[in-house]
């Protein structure tokens, strides 16, 4: 298959840095062992392998395990019409990655969002500032240890920010119950 060939070429170029490609439902993922070199890998993927479209960069908070962050790059090529996924692990003490804005300009806002929501900095980014929350907001909201309702902040120029009233917790469903009563509890606490 075309994607596996491209992933093999990537592995041939970088050797041990790239893991063996794993596949799930037709989607191919490779892990990049050294996060500092992810910009190099992306540059090779764009220039030599034809992955000219960065679909998305997202981040995962593996709360409780080390390394804490996993950053996922989704790549696509208009020429060969193949998707590829690159994953890197970043530890919490470091919380920094080189930027890929030099490879794809569209990575600019994706990296700003990751910085805003998780706190991972991108070295070499042209304008790394918060994009969804306001500048000066002291927390990183999508971390697993940040509550959904938010924490009160005391920035004088924003109206004010108290935590939102949740009235018993986020009303999310539990999977796999036979009846709707089991699946949709009235109140779901974080422990259940």
């Amino acid at each position, binding site marked *: 298959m075309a994607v596996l060939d491209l992933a093999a070429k990537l592995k041939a170029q970088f050797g041990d840095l790239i893991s063996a490609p794993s596949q799930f439902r037709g989607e191919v993922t490779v892990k990049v062992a050294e996060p500092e070199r992810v910009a190099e890998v992306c540059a090779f993927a764009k220039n030599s392998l034809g992955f000219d479209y960065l679909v998305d960069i997202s981040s995962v908070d593996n709360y409780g395990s080390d390394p804490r962050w996993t950053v996922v790059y989704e790549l696509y090529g208009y020429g060969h019409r193949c998707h590829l996924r690159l994953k890197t692990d970043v530890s919490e003490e470091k919380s920094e990655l080189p930027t890929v804005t030099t490879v794809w300009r569209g990575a600019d806002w994706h990296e700003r969002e990751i910085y805003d929501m998780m706190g991972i900095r991108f070295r070499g980014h042209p304008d790394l500032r918060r994009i969804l*929350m*306001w500048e000066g907001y002291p927390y990183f909201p999508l971390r697993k240890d940040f509550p*959904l*309702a*938010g924490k009160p902040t005391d920035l004088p120029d924003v109206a004010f920010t*108290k935590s*939102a*009233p949740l009235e018993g917790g986020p009303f999310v469903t539990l999977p796999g119950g036979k009846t709707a009563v089991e699946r949709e509890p009235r109140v779901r606490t974080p422990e259940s």
Partner: protein
Amino acid sequence: MQTSTELAYDSKIEGGFVVTRAEAALNWCRKNSLWPMPMGLACCAIELMAAGASRFDISRFGSEVMRFSPRQSDVMIVAGTVTYKMALALRRIYDQMAEPKWVIAMGACASTGGMYRSYAVLQGVDQIVPVDVYVAGCPPRPEALLDALIKLQKKIEKQPVLKELEISSVLRSKHGEKVGTN
């Protein structure tokens, strides 16, 4: 002297003159020409646009133009989710509107924060601006918004305009004495 606050005109009796109270006339002018400042932030803005389109014509009620400039509008219709980041801008726009001004909070998000009980959403726009009418719905039907406009018109009918002017002139007088007759 006629004391009703309604404008009644019978040409046989009055014969070309309308007799009413000044307050009633002023309030009638204000309520029938409410130009909205559409603070259309999210999905409710689409229903606001629908209320302004031909089927649910909002200009029947005097809201002829949607003035996107706060200086030229009377009522701010907050239609949509207000995030904390937008709350800053919203308050500034409200401050730029000229008196008399009113606010309609359209939809669940503007009234109470709606389904978004989270760190980023202001739980109700009434925490930063004084709201006159709340409209429930997600999004409210255009008819519901027109109902809110009618309720706002009824509220404006009863506002004591001249008393406000008198009070403000008292506050402005240099020596703190009561100015004008009572």
